[in-house]
């Protein structure tokens, strides 16, 4: 028996978001004239409980079997209304949404008449499509109860610890020899002025010792395959040329190594040995031999480290090691790098003048583990600077460079002023700011405190350039809007609070994962307000600056949230397949095989049937793109929910002027 179609149309006002532009009543009146429409109703908030209940009651009372909701984007509330259908005992896929908010009222708010006409079309098209919809089913697949965290900065460490503490296994992968990230470089953290290492080191050690955390340092992700619940990840562990099992971390090799090169951890401001610990509190506390600069690898001589190592842990024969792991969820915490001011903003003379440094470099010049052992000495002549200028917004909030705010430069700059005046009591600091954005908890107090210092002057103005005269002295003019004066500054040290960019490694990982990035290169969250830790890829979460610039408290908070999202997935232990999979009518299939290579997920196989061959779809592998359906020459292949006979009526309504 052919089921009688009974369509219910529900038009949402979304408060005034839709109703102030679209004439909802007119849409309802129009909808009720469409064939098979049994009910057409409106409601101020269709997504609210009463709104959903209205639909559920109508389904039950009036025997509705197809539902159209005209409201916001299906990307927003399709799951909500599908659940409502389910609660009413209807297959959740017998729903079609008409997006009359994002695609209509919001973008045509100056044209209410045209918007109303468009809303009618969108509703009519949804009705045309939903009439052809069929019930769909999904299948549940087990998820691997293990997570991967990429990036061992404070975000990655926090996320890994949270997952590990909830009882799941987690891999923490870091490309550098030690975990710790950029936070390990900081001397103090604002606004409390906690010693950065003192608060970070215990977390680093805890992560290293946690039974559920597998730490893979000096390792890089090579490839990621699979999807939510079942990712296969290849990781390359670079050789340290030190047997980590034998090494006791005594450091004799580092002492005995006769060669030095610039230290990456100290941003080139100091030297390190060729076999070295990245920094004294490195975790794991195992040295790394820098092959490119090692005399043994270049000339076959030296071998001092091997000679002196009491544990016989030096192993020149170590090879890169490829590790393959299966995980159910991935957290990206790849962090940030600094904007390349040296090449992109030559007017600030960072590079040519040694006395122009970045804020991060000042952290190393202030840190007790830094190249100057905590004495703030300017790089050119190792003298104490007495007159320091700190420039905020270098490269940030700039259409020609980075159009976004770095979100920590202001308060970092204020903290850097504190470093100077607390280390060098007779020093004067000038901060050139555009707007002071001290929005975090306790930041305004900290700003007020530093602002009150006699030794710190705030200039409301940004220099255009920094000049260096023939004897190396720096000078430049800056217009101060506060005093309405053009000031000539002649600092002996300039600190640039440079903008931040995603760590360069993120681009490749995002490409591999097909995880969307914004125009600024940062990861695009699924929803900026409501789903800030999720990405466009199911099972891939984001924590910290990879999503956008943020300070340490926000980074740690987001890491916890990302971990919670991952834990929810692992604890559930299963993932649902997509419903909109490809489907083949084997009676129509000619066995031509065009579809097979079109599928990027190898979900189509050709199987023998009646002496010939026909296509078969493995529903659990299919991700539901529909490429095979478009390629099929005989019409045998289709995509459920997007079948030709469902799409064509929709297209025809939308194309036809009423």
């Amino acid at each position, binding site marked *: 028996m052919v089921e009688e179609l009974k369509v219910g149309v529900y038009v949402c006002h979304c408060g005034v978001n839709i109703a102030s532009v679209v004439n909802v009543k007119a849409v309802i009146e129009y909808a009720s004239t469409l064939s098979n429409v049994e009910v057409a109703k409106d409601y101020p908030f269709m997504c609210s409980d009463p709104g959903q209940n209205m639909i559920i009651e109508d389904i039950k009372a009036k025997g509705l079997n197809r539902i159209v909701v005209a409201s916001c984007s299906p*990307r927003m509330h399709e799951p909500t209304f599908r659940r409502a259908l389910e609660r009413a005992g209807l297959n959740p896929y017998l729903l079609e949404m008409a997006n009359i908010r994002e*695609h209509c009222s919001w973008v045509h708010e100056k044209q209410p008449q045209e918007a109303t006409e468009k809303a009618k079309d969108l509703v009519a098209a949804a009705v045309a499509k939903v009439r052809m919809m069929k019930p769909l089913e999904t299948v549940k697949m087990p998820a691997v109860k293990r997570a991967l965290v990429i990036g061992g900065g404070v975000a990655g460490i926090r996320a890994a610890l949270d997952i590990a503490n909830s009882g799941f296994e987690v891999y923490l992968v870091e490309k550098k020899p030690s975990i710790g990230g950029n936070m390990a470089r900081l001397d103090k953290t604002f606004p409390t002025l906690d010693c950065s290492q003192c608060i970070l080191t215990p977390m680093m050690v805890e992560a290293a010792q946690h039974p559920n955390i597998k730490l893979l340092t000096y390792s890089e992700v090579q490839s990621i395959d699979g999807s939510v619940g079942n990712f296969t990840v290849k990781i390359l562990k670079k050789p340290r040329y030190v047997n980590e099992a034998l090494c006791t971390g005594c450091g004799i090799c580092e002492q005995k190594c006769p060669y030095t090169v610039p230290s990456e951890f100290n941003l080139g401001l100091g030297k390190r040995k060729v076999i070295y610990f990245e920094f004294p509190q490195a975790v794991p506390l195992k040295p790394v031999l820098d092959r490119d600069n090692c005399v043994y690898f270049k000339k076959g001589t030296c071998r001092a480290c091997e000679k002196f190592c009491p544990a016989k842990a030096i192993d020149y024969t170590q090879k890169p090691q490829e590790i393959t792991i299966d995980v159910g969820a991935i957290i990206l915490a790849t962090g940030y790098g600094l904007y390349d001011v040296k090449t992109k903003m030559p007017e600030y003379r960072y590079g040519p003048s040694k006395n122009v440094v970045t804020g991060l470099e000042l952290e190393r010049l202030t840190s007790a583990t830094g190249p100057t052992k905590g004495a703030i000495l300017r790089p050119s002549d190792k003298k104490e600077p007495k007159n320091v200028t700190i420039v905020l917004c270098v490269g940030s909030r700039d259409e020609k460079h980075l159009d976004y705010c770095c979100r920590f430069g202001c308060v970092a700059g204020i903290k850097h002023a504190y470093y100077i005046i607390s280390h060098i009591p007779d020093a004067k600091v000038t901060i050139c700011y555009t707007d002071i954005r001290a929005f975090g908890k306790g930041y305004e107090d900290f700003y007020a405190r530093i602002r009150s210092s006699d030794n710190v002057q705030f200039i409301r103005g940004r220099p255009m350039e920094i000049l260096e005269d023939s004897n190396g002295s720096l000078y430049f003019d800056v217009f101060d809007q506060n005093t309405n004066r053009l000031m000539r500054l002649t600092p002996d040290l300039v600190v640039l609070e440079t903008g931040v960019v995603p760590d360069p490694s993120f681009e490749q990982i995002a490409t591999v994962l097909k995880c969307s990035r914004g125009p600024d290169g940062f990861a695009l969250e699924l929803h900026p307000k409501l789903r800030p830790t999720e990405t466009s890829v199911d099972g891939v979460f984001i924590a910290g600056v990879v999503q956008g610039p943020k300070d340490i408290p926000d980074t740690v908070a987001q890491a916890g949230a990302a971990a919670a999202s991952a834990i929810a997935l692992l604890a559930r232990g299963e993932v649902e397949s997509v419903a909109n999979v490809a489907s083949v009518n084997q009676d129509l299939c000619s066995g031509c095989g065009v579809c097979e290579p079109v599928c*990027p997920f190898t979900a189509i196989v050709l199987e023998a049937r009646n002496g010939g061959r026909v296509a078969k779809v493995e529903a659990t592998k299919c991700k539901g793109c529909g490429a095979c359906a478009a*390629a099929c020459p005989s019409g045998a292949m289709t*995509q459920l929910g*997007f079948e030709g006979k469902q799409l064509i009526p929709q297209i025809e309504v939308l194309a036809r002027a009423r």
Partner: protein
Amino acid sequence: MASNFEPRIVVFACNWCSYAGMDLAGTSRMLYPANLRVVRLMCSGRLEPEHILYAFKAGADGVLVTGCHPGDCHYISGNYKTRKRIRLLEQLLAQFGLEKERLRLEWISASEGEIFTRVAKEFTEKIRALGPSSLKQEKMFAPLISARAAGGGGD
């Protein structure tokens, strides 16, 4: 007549990039002409050239196909297939006396609400300048579609 002509444009959008980019244009309250009507697909790779012909047949004056930028496809390679199919179809349109400018392919990412807005305005103006599609009343168009000659099997 031309002065009152309001073009009817059908847009095909993939769920992950371009539809999301259009949503962003909405949440950002960017304004564009009300001449566009969007068909949401999971991937632009689902789009059959035939669907575009159905749109023209039913009265569309222009068809805008949107997808993820090359390399960004949620399904790895759907947008490459779309590009090939559209190129093929463009040639066919010209042969049947339909200006190939009536069909446009654009890559719109989830963060490019502004770009979509610009494209929507430009394309609407372009179609307005071209005038109504000559195929609107063309009865002879139907057999063409049923012939499935539009390269539906092309990958």
